């Protein structure tokens, strides 16, 4: 059953201690843990928001720029974590002209920012900046996770400004039975939370995420890291991910209040009942081509929560891309680099050509565009 003797246990513990001691040296020599590797330039700024344009890596670019809207709850450098793990780099290599909104870090001054500010004002101003600077009627939009939900709201409110919409690991139906985050938030008095804390500390959300799998995420992971303490490259990759995980911005109070209550607790997005700045968000108005990318093993946004978009958006050109992996793996796994950016770029390019020909496409469901 358990074949362990004192000598073996002692030897194993000694090896563990030796690795830890060696690891101290590796850690000391690692230097700065850098993230966000692709060169980029700020092109627009408003309050704490910065809109970046990534420097192209090919000469022939897609004419329609792609604006990435990341979630508010983590930092967007997950999309460009390191040279060999960068969804953004993959898109650039495929000829996509990539822009990204960096929300910055909300502080006390942002306590009253609402979803209306984020959708109508911040996303709206970035979209308009690109439309004006590029002299285009509409641009392409890619929303990630919570940023996908915000992008859906924007696309429903301003369909004329969005040529093609890509949603990645985006929750639409927040009440699927396997939605753990909704399960945890269901009985929390959100008004009490926001009225008490003001902005919601990022570490509170981080704790909630870690509490989904505490023995693995707060224990086993750090025991396992001892195995790579002598490998500077692997250790740097590990720490880069750790840096991202714990780099959690605080959430502007009012925006959090509405998102938690309307989206998580009352599931208003899928019901068409979300109001943003007095305007109703009706997903049937999302009529542009939509590519919905979800991860089959996503424990934060279950596939069913994302796939619900098929039944409620108004697009006649709706496609799905299922990535075999999890919520984080879809950005950073080796397979994701090979599969996801090329698929998105190909899908966008096909819609660009379709648009040129002025051809109307029939509503369809495609697994792998």
């Amino acid at each position, binding site marked *: *059953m358990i074949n362990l003797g004192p000598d073996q246990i002692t030897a194993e513990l000694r090896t563990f201690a030796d690795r830890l001691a060696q690891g101290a040296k590796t850690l000391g020599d690692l230097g700065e843990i850098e993230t966000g590797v692709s060169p980029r330039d700020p092109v627009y700024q408003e309050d704490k928001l910065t809109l970046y344009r990534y420097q192209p890596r090919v000469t022939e670019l897609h004419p329609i720029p792609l604006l990435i809207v990341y979630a508010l709850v983590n930092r967007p450098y997950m999309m460009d974590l390191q040279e060999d793990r960068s969804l953004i780099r993959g898109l650039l290599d495929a000829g996509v002209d990539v822009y990204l909104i960096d929300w910055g870090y909300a502080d006390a001054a942002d306590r009253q920012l609402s979803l209306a500010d984020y959708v109508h004002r911040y996303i709206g101003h970035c979209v308009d900046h690109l439309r004006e600077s590029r002299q285009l009627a509409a641009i392409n939009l890619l929303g990630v996770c919570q940023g996908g939900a915000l992008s859906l709201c924007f696309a429903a409110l301003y369909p004329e400004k969005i040529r093609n919409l890509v949603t990645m690991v985006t929750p639409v139906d927040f009440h699927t039975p396997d939605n753990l985050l909704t399960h945890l938030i269901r009985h929390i008095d959100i008004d009490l939370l926001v009225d008490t804390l003001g902005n919601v500390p990022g570490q509170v959300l981080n704790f909630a995420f870690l509490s989904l799998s505490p023995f693995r995420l707060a224990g*086993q992971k750090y025991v396992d890291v001892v195995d790579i303490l002598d490998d500077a490259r692997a250790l740097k990759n590990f720490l880069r991910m750790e840096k991202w995980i714990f780099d959690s911005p605080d959430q502007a109070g009012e925006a959090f209040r509405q998102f938690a209550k309307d989206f998580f607790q009352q599931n208003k997005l899928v019901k068409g009942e979300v109001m943003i700045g007095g305007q109703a968000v009706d997903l049937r108005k999302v009529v542009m081509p939509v590519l919905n990318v979800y991860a089959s093993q996503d424990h934060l946004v279950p596939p069913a929560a994302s796939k619900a978009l098929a039944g409620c958006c108004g697009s006649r050109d709706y496609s799905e891309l299922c990535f075999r992996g999890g919520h984080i793996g879809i950005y950073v796994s080796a397979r994701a680099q090979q599969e996801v950016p090329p698929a998105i770029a190909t899908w966008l390019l096909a819609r660009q050509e379709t648009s040129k020909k002025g051809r109307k496409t029939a509503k369809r469901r495609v697994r792998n565009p």
Partner: protein
Amino acid sequence: MADSDDASPAAGFDAELLLKQARAYLAFGAQIRQVADRFQDSLQQETDWNSAVRQQFEQFKDAITQSSNDPGVNPELAQLSTVMVDAWQQAALALQLPIAAPTDRNSVAWRAYQQTQHQYFDLLQQAAGQALDLMEQRLRERAIAGETISNLRELYNLWVACNEETYGQMLRSAEYSALSGRLLNALLICYPRRETTT
């Protein structure tokens, strides 16, 4: 349960003893919680911090002495714990450590929070106990399949997997959803509100 071939003390590792000690550890944790609860009561009655701390540690040591009577607990370990508690007591008194409470410890809100926290810990403890049962079951299954655990890491990984499984079941229950929500709400009520709902 002990397998005479590879789980007996002669072979170096007794799985049954291991699980027994783990359960005793959980029971010890439960006793400490009871002592901590009583500490809150003594704080209500006692305005002098030093006196309250002294009372608390005396109760703590009594609890350890009681637990050492349990045949499942190693008496030397219990004695060691008593020495440690003595050291903590001296340190706490020397440092005048305050207990960080967000509000008046005697308030109804704080008491309500503690009550909810108690229920929450009960649920966690239940899941931890179930994890040990599951671990026992997995060890039996391995024994039947002729598989052995041959290093500490493997044993630790099994413990993690069993805890994740039972914790995950608890996490997905309606009871946990309601209780964790009530726990956070009860804690928040203890803090002054910055502003009213807009």
